């Protein structure tokens, strides 16, 4: 007899372990096809899994009752404070309003020349070597440099900053709070210096984000220093690891699918569409968590106050009810951009347009300079669970 929890079949799938690459997508597919809703007991609190595209999309729209008091179904109640994520309702809208303008398509377009120039510099540095660890030597350096540029800070600080942010990521994931606190202090000291400098020499708040954060008012009150530091740290945590991860999957795919790579090399106009299809096929944030605030019935599910809900982004993006041949990469797939890789509802990813720009620029510039490359022979690629990323991706090309 099938084990159930309040009428839901129970699954034990552990989504937090390191596995061979792509294994998480297979686990996600298997759970989705087992039953429409499941209760997963692999964590202490457990969580109700929404897995089909329509359910996940509807779930993101339950934001009044399902809040980010839990942000990840896999790790409820732990982690750094994040802003604006931790806010809900009106408070959240007010802070997003201050930040939105710096991440809107118009603002992102202003960054494109710098994004392109920095991308070319990094590629030209690697090209003569004929090989690199794409993850460590490119995929994390590029978004780090652009993050600093977005804040109006010198890109030349990138290498130094990267050491701190990598230390913070690894300490957070290893669950080592003392080491994490130390790494975080280097970063916040650096941000504090930048804030001090900008207080003394304000920029134009319409285009300079740090100045805008210093001058912004919510209900006539300025943001506190702590709030501003949390916002900056959040942008860093949200933007660097994710871009690195996306690039890792995209380049693994292209290194092993010569036909798709040739298409992009020969017709760079396809890159915009390819980016959407990559986002659909390889979402690295494969779930978002929410906490139910009041008892509620949802599509026949009896949810109780305090329940943790899993919004299965990775399952929705490969749901055969929504996307035909969902595990295939189809460059001009109709409706590819309906994926939920960036989430939905009021918390949808602030940096989505920047992420798209970064992926597009890298694909354009890299393939113009290094059109052919392969994964080094004998490599076994592994992916981190929880939030997917490749630990390393050794690429080789002819010089």
């Amino acid at each position, binding site marked *: 007899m099938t084990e159930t929890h309040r009428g839901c079949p129970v699954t034990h799938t552990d989504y937090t372990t390191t596995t061979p690459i792509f294994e998480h997508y297979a686990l996600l597919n298997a759970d989705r096809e087992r039953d429409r809703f499941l209760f997963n007991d692999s964590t202490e609190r457990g969580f109700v899994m929404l897995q089909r595209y329509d359910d996940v*999309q509807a779930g*993101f*729209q339950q934001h009044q009752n399902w809040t980010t008091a839990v942000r990840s179904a896999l790790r409820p109640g732990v982690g750094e404070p994040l802003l604006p994520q931790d806010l809900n309702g009106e408070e959240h809208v007010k802070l997003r*309003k201050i930040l*939105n*303008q710096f*991440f*809107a*398509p*118009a603002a992102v377009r202003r960054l494109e020349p710098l994004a392109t120039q920095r991308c070319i510099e990094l590629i030209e540095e690697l090209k003569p070597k004929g090989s690199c660890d794409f993850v460590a030597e490119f995929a994390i350096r590029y978004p780090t440099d652009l993050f600093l540029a977005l804040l109006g800070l010198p890109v030349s600080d990138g290498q130094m900053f990267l050491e701190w942010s990598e230390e913070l990521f690894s300490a957070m994931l290893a669950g080592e709070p003392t080491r994490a606190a130390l790494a975080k202090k280097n970063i916040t000291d650096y941000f504090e210096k930048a804030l001090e400098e900008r207080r003394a020499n304000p920029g134009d708040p319409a285009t300079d984000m740090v100045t805008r954060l210093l001058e912004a008012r919510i209900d006539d009150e300025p943001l506190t220093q702590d709030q501003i530091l949390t916002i900056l740290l959040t942008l860093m945590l949200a933007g660097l690891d994710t871009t690195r991860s996306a690039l890792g999957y995209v380049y693994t795919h292209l290194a092993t699918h010569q036909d798709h790579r040739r298409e992009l090399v020969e017709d760079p106009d396809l890159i915009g569409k390819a980016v959407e299809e990559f986002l659909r096929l390889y979402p690295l944030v494969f779930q978002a968590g929410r906490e139910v605030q009041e008892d509620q019935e949802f599509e026949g599910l009896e949810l109780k106050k305090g329940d943790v809900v899993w919004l299965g982004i990775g399952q929705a993006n490969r749901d055969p009810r929504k996307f035909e041949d969902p595990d295939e990469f189809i460059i001009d797939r109709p*409706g590819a*951009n*309906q994926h*939920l890789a*960036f989430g*939905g*509802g*009021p918390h*949808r990813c602030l940096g*989505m*347009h920047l992420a798209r720009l970064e992926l597009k620029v890298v694909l354009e510039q890299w393939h113009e300079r290094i059109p052919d490359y392969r994964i080094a022979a004998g490599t076994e690629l592994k992916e981190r669970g929880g939030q997917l990323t490749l630990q390393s991706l050794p690429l080789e090309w002819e010089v």
Partner: protein
Amino acid sequence: MFIEIDATKCMGHGRCYAVAPDLLTDDDEGFVAERGQRWEVPADLLDQAQEAVDACPEGAIAVSSAAPVDA
């Protein structure tokens, strides 16, 4: 045919004006500038209107043949 954008559902994904550039525009915050409005779609832009409907992850855009209620 009329297009209508529900301002309470729009979350600023920006996919509608990307697929319907001749029909929709973006504002400074990245939201579709025409949210909260309902207007008649020129016949030659009906395809773009339908693409915008399909692209919205929030289901905020509708195309229908009914005339505006307050017309």
